[in-house]
């Protein structure tokens, strides 16, 4: 295992920002990115001149722009000495926390702004290239839901999947979205387990309510040294205490068990780095493009055993009042997925909870959180990147 460069808690998240999620807003990633930056400046009384590091995600809506990050500095008025766009999809947000921490420790910068913004429900300029035009698109398999339909069906052949358990997770997250003013308006109505079970089939056994929906929006953080956080008088700084990431898990195996994901490696590894077991995690903010991905994470990170995810969900209160709160703001599935800024939604909610600012949905004794990322859907496997970040207040 690699050394844990976060063990000294010498890096701190000092502020978070998030826009409301909208559908077909007519706005661009720059609109949302600037709204996020402005909120971060407001909250900290910092100005563009005070930011010397900038970490971004590559938006779908700006996918044709090879100079997205450079344009962004000009929009913000920031003059960074360290600039990074991370393109590991839904792992980019947690990945940026780790990359920013490393850059700060290396002395490349001291005050990093991290921004995720995307507007794919207004315009999606992604063009995947590579093998996809020859070996995926002509097969008729419809995008991510199709690949997750294959994954879900294979899981069902190997393990016991209870749809009531996924329905409970869907309904619980939806209750969180109802209490989340930033969630997409039309999703701020409760659903029941039956609503989930009755929702239409998309790529059977995957249903509509198993899935996220693209929205437009943005989110971000400010990260600096713990020393600097103290001089800024930050009330409740949040420390990243462990991080693990892997991309192209099982990538050289042509016939892997597709129910085995990168989380089977990075989950236990991140916990070990933090000196914790899964039972020590107060709340869980897993990347949620599809419900089955959350169940696989619960099993493979170690909250329960293999094949026990359904029973674990049925036996555990995963609401904000429960033993293991999961995606308390609705997650992406209920609040909406702001394109490739989606990973930042789970992360922002964790930071908000740890700072004690989650209002009606505040978790009691929110001392630590695990946040995860999932990035990219590869050919006939599960997902390309897996990341686990553990935060402590």
């Amino acid at each position, binding site marked *: 295992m690699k050394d844990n460069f976060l063990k000294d808690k010498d890096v701190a998240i000092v502020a978070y920002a998030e826009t409301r999620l909208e559908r077909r807003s007519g706005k661009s990633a720059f609109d949302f990115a600037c709204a996020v930056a402005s909120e971060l400046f407001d909250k900290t009384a910092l100005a563009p001149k005070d930011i010397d590091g900038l970490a971004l995600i590559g938006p779908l809506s700006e996918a044709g722009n090879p100079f997205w990050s450079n344009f962004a500095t000009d929009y913000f008025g920031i003059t960074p000495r360290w600039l990074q766009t991370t393109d590991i999809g839904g792992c980019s947000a947690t990945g940026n926390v780790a990359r920013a921490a490393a850059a700060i420790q290396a002395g490349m910068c001291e005050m990093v702004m991290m921004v995720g913004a995307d507007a794919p429900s207004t315009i999606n300029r992604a063009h995947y290239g590579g*093998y996809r*035009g*020859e*070996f*995926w*698109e*002509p*097969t*008729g*398999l*419809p*995008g991510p*839901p*199709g690949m997750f*339909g*294959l*994954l*879900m*069906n*294979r899981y069902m*052949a190997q393990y016991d999947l209870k749809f009531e358990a996924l329905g409970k997770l869907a309904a619980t997250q939806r209750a969180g979205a109802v209490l989340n003013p930033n969630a997409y308006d039309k999703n701020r109505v409760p659903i029941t387990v039956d609503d989930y079970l009755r929702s*239409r*089939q*998309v*790529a*059977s*056994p*995957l249903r509509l309510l198993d899935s996220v929906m693209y929205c437009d929006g943005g989110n971000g953080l400010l990260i600096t040294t713990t020393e600097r956080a103290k001089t800024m008088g930050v009330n409740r700084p949040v420390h990243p205490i462990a991080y693990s990431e892997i991309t192209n898990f099982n*990538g*050289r195996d*042509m*016939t892997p068990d*597709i129910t085995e994901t990168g989380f089977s490696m990075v989950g236990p590894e991140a916990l070990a780095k933090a000196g914790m077991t899964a039972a020590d995690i107060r709340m869980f903010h897993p990347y949620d493009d599809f419900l089955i991905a959350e169940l696989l994470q619960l099993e493979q990170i170690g909250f329960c055993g293999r094949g026990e995810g359904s029973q674990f969900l049925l036996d555990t209160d995963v609401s904000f009042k429960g033993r293991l709160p999961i995606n308390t703001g609705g997650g992406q599935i209920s609040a909406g997925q702001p394109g490739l800024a989606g990973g930042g939604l789970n992360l922002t909610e964790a930071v908000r909870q740890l700072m004690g600012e989650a209002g009606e949905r505040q978790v009691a004794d929110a001392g630590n959180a695990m946040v995860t990322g999932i990035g990219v859907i590869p*050919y*006939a496997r599960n997902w390309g990147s897996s990341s686990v970040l553990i935060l402590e207040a």
Partner: protein
Amino acid sequence: MSDKKAQRPVPRPSFYTKPFWDGARERKLMLQYDPDAQAFQFWPRPISVKTGKANLEWREASGKGVLYSYTVCHVPGAGFEERVPYVVGCIELAEGVRMVANLVGVEPQDATIGMPMRVTWEPVGDTNYYAFEPDR
């Protein structure tokens, strides 16, 4: 072009995939084989994922395998509108690679993980595209 209706995408061969599509035109399933690692790989790449070398051969595959997983598509991919609901499967070939493909001659209720499958071909553009059917 029949105006607004989405067409099934036509594969455009790249330099290193040309032998695959040349084979497809003759209804032959060609796979890349790495003689150093003694392993097939799919989809085709310029180098071997096992060794990182460009030492790759093209071999005709048996076209036989078993269904590793499948999904019933109710929301169609482009050009598949009239087939809804249709089955897309992930087939594990005897050669030790997996292929995702449309299943023909398989009603949604008849698909079973583990069922024997064999390759078949459908005309697409000026070539053929692989599909799989039950190997009875």
